[in-house]
């Protein structure tokens, strides 16, 4: 192996979204960056995996490269003060359980062969067409490495007692015009409400400070309309909060006007009928695109590589030293992924971090066949466009999100669909599988195993399942797990000025981007954060240079460890029909 330089300006461990952005921002400013990841794939918990990697469950365990000891300790941090802390790896993905519902061996074999056609996100994320992240992608020119497609439908279950009915959420003028979900009076009220929200930001009226509860009351919105708006605009973080708060003072309520405006303004920016865009090949592409930018500006990348020791040196107080595979490297700043944590040795009390806040998500990834969760195309239209009614849809069932993906998402091969299920986890809940199976059972058909089916004497299908199973998607395989988004708030004096941890208690992409911006500005207070991309000529130049030294699969990787290395799924960009480039 070639020798690494003995010092860098920044060493980043982990290729999650926050780490990747920091890496790109630093490299873009001309700082030398060493970016490593103990995993053999990019993205950390934002990774996107092929079928075989997915079912192997590697992401639910600490990276194999780590030489973990007791309590997942991987090494030590020797401080200037003489204190020593253990560096531990805490895997954010846990309690994994997967299950084949289908006993069809042909299917099992086929998905294995089609493994690379699967791009399964550990944390699926849709972007709103006008959210700041998109602005950052455009501004930094990272968008040229990414392709998106529109989420065509946003649907919701209706409020009780109609909770098993799924209807599209009408939020654009033409949706409201055509919908049959709400009454005429409700149409008028909803339009007025949305116009009001859109207008209220324009001249900074005091009304924009109103909570959603206030606004709904002011506009005399019906229960159904309130439910639909709430289902549309709320985020997963909001769901976690809303459950406890009834006084309308939670984040959803307080920030409603701002968020709803963003939501509405996002519609149709790129021809999208909903505000949402789906990243082709998965969310990991976003991480990788920033890594690529970092690499173009000189960042050095090594996967399957971690650090063992961190120490501060009296002689060079401005320098952090690390050991990686026995090599000592100096750096001015060290950025660590959320999974790496410090644990003081000796003091029993602080075995766990001082104060923890954040949320845990219940996740389910269901491989399904059969009809969509809700086919809302009129029978005539459906017959006409048979075969080409490919649609990506988001369903909001209370505090549960389901993203229904077909092959146009490039997350799943033809003839299959994938349901990406996410909901907040609350202490004392049953297992992820039990939660999701019970929450989804009225919408999908968790197929009974053949042998079980046979055991009884000729029971017709309809007797087993009163709702005809043909109307619902059939689950072939399910993966269930929990993902932690925790921020351990350390004591003030433990805040290090050179070592940054990318922890965030939010599941929202924008907060992770914000975290990156914050860490970058602490490292380089005067540095411009991912400034506008260079002029086209210069740009082409960069591209050329970049292309020369690049491996086939388009990864900005320098010394990739060879053999058995499942590259993150990332076909070369540009081969697929361009779906949605970001052009201003």
């Amino acid at each position: 192996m070639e020798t690494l330089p003995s010092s860098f300006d920044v060493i980043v461990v982990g290729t999650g979204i926050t780490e990747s952005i920091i890496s790109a921002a630093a490299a873009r400013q001309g700082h030398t960056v060493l970016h490593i990841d103990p995993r053999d794939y990019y993205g950390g918990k934002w990774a996107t995996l092929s079928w075989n990697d997915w079912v192997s469950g590697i992401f639910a365990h600490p990276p194999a490269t780590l030489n973990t000891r007791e309590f997942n300790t991987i090494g030590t941090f020797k401080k200037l003060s003489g204190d020593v802390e253990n560096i531990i790896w805490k895997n954010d993905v846990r309690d994994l359980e997967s299950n084949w519902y289908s006993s069809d061996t042909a299917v099992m074999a086929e998905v294995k062969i089609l493994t690379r056609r699967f791009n399964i996100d550990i944390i699926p994320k849709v972007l709103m067409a006008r959210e700041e992240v998109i602005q950052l992608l455009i501004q930094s020119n990272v968008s040229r490495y990414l392709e998106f497609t529109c989420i065509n439908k946003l649907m919701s279950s209706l409020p009780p007692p109609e909770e098993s009915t799924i209807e599209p959420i009408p939020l654009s003028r033409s949706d409201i015009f055509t919908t049959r979900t709400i009454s005429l009076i409700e149409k008028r009220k909803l339009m007025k409400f949305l116009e009001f929200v859109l207008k209220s930001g324009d001249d900074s009226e005091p009304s924009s400070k109103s909570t959603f509860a206030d606004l709904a009351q002011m506009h005399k919105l019906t229960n159904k309309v309130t439910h639909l708006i709430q289902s549309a605009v709320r985020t997963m973080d909001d769901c976690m909060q809303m459950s406890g708060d009834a006084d309308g003072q939670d984040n959803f309520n307080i920030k409603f006007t701002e968020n709803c405006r963003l939501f509405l303004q996002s519609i149709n920016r790129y021809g999208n009928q909903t505000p949402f865009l789906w990243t082709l090949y998965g969310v990991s592409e976003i991480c990788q695109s920033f890594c690529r930018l970092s690499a173009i500006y000189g960042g050095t990348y090594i996967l399957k590589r971690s650090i063992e020791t961190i120490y501060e040196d009296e002689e060079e107080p401005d320098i952090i030293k690390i050991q990686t595979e026995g090599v000592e490297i100096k750096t001015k700043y060290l950025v660590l992924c959320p999974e790496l944590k410090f644990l003081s040795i000796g003091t029993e009390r602080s075995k766990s971090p001082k104060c923890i806040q954040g949320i845990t998500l219940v996740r389910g990834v269901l491989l399904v066949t059969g009809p969509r969760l809700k086919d809302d195309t009129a029978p005539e239209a459906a017959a006409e466009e048979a075969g080409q009614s490919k649609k990506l849809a988001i369903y909001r069932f209370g505090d549960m999100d389901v993203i229904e993906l077909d092959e146009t998402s490039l997350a799943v091969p033809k003839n299959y669909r994938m349901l990406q299920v996410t909901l907040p986890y609350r202490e004392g809940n049953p297992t992820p599988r039990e939660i999701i199976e019970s929450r989804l059972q009225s919408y999908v058909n968790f197929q009974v195993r053949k042998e079980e089916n046979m055991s009884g004497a000729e029971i017709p299908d309809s007797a087993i399942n009163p709702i005809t199973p043909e109307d619902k998607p059939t689950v072939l395989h399910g993966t269930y797990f929990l993902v932690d988004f925790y921020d351990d708030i350390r004591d003030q004096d433990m805040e290090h000025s050179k070592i940054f941890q990318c922890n965030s208690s939010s599941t929202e992409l924008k907060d992770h981007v914000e975290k990156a911006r914050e860490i970058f500005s602490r490292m380089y207070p005067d540095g411009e954060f991912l400034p506008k991309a260079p002029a086209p000529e210069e740009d082409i130049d960069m591209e050329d240079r970049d292309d020369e030294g690049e491996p086939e699969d388009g990864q900005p990787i320098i010394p990739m460890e060879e053999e058995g290395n499942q590259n993150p799924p990332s076909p070369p960009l540009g081969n697929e029909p361009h779906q949605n480039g970001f052009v201003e």
Partner: protein
Amino acid sequence: MHGRQKVEQTIEEKQKKDKERGKKLVAYQHAMKLIFTKRSKNELDKELLQISAQMLTSNPDIGTLWNLRKETLLVMRKNLDLDFAELVRKDLELTEVCLRSNPKSYGAWHHRCWLMYETNFDSIVNELKLVSKYLKYDDRNFHCWDYRRYLLDNSESMSLKEELEFTTEKIVSNFSNYSSWHLRSTILPKVSDNFLREELELIKNAAYTDPNDQSVWFYYRWLLKSQLLKETPKLLFAQEGELKGSSALLCVFNVPVENPSGLAHNDNKGVLNLSAYSAQPECWSNPWNNSRSKLWAMDLSDQSALIDVAEVVTSCHKFPKYFDSETQPKQPELEALLRNELIWVSELNELEPDNKWILATVILLMRLIDFQGYKLEINNNLSKLLELDLNRTNYYLDLRSKYIMEWKLVDFPIGAEEIDLSNLGLTSAYYLERLCYIKGVNLSGNQLNESVSLSALLLCERLILQK
């Protein structure tokens, strides 16, 4: 495109643009000179097509050049060595290139119409695709809609049903579109007899979604009025009178008519044909010497012997209790439907009390259902409109003047010699022809517009007009 802000250009940009413009001008003048020289030499050939194509590509609005191309193509058509179809195909391509840079070029669209006409609308499928494509970029490009209607009017292979579906599709994606509603209004009566209820449902949904969108309301007015009986010209009233010293028969018709002699009056007694009495146009006159008029006077001095004036006058001695197809009594089914409509429009009016479109529609519906019975409500709504929409004050005042006259005249006894129309707030004087025989008219205390003509008051002896 609609709804986009115009960006002011800076001085630098303007200078740069002016410079470019200067260069273009020189090239333009040179090419035009060349073309005209060729034309004067009658060289209507491929070279001319080539040069004009270049010119049109950069500026598709030089009408002269399009005409020259037409001229040239027609000449070439006679030359059997040339493939006319191929030439047409090239010209279609040229117009498409032009439309790419300017989707609203009159010249290019018109040329396309001509090409279609000359080729018997052969390539209609492609044309529809093209139009749909351009309407996707700008769903209110009226050139596209015009062209589409032109194709529809001329091609036999187009399916009306598909066209109707096309308008539905466009309306569903954005109903704020006069053109698609309009195309719909021309197709619907041809495709179906029973479209009313579905259309009303569509309108209702659009109106509740966005009551400020005027295109829906206009469509609604069209749809409602399309249900009314057509007014056929007929004689309403006739009375003898002394006009300029000689005897005359004053005739009032329901609509302005051109040639009163030929009109028949239908009543219980059968058909009365005025032409039987006078076929001579010169004996008819109207106070304005207009070619069309509701009021005509027939000079009886020459032909009194020929006419049974008494019979005409008895059979047409009073006016009907309505004024036009709007105020005419409706069939029970239509009236029931209109009453239903008034319910939802009124409900919407309660939700949006300050919306002028809704108020105007409430007035229309009330007028259609029972213009007399809703007198108070119509008046109130008009007052509200006058407060809300200051830009159309005179329109509403005019409308009110018309309605007031209707309410006054509907019950006016025919034998009366005088009528008091004072202090009614009239700005105009409608239906004066119905008062052609009245001796005394009091119009004082009104705000009559200076242009109001009182000439219809043919037999008036006492007129009070003071403000």
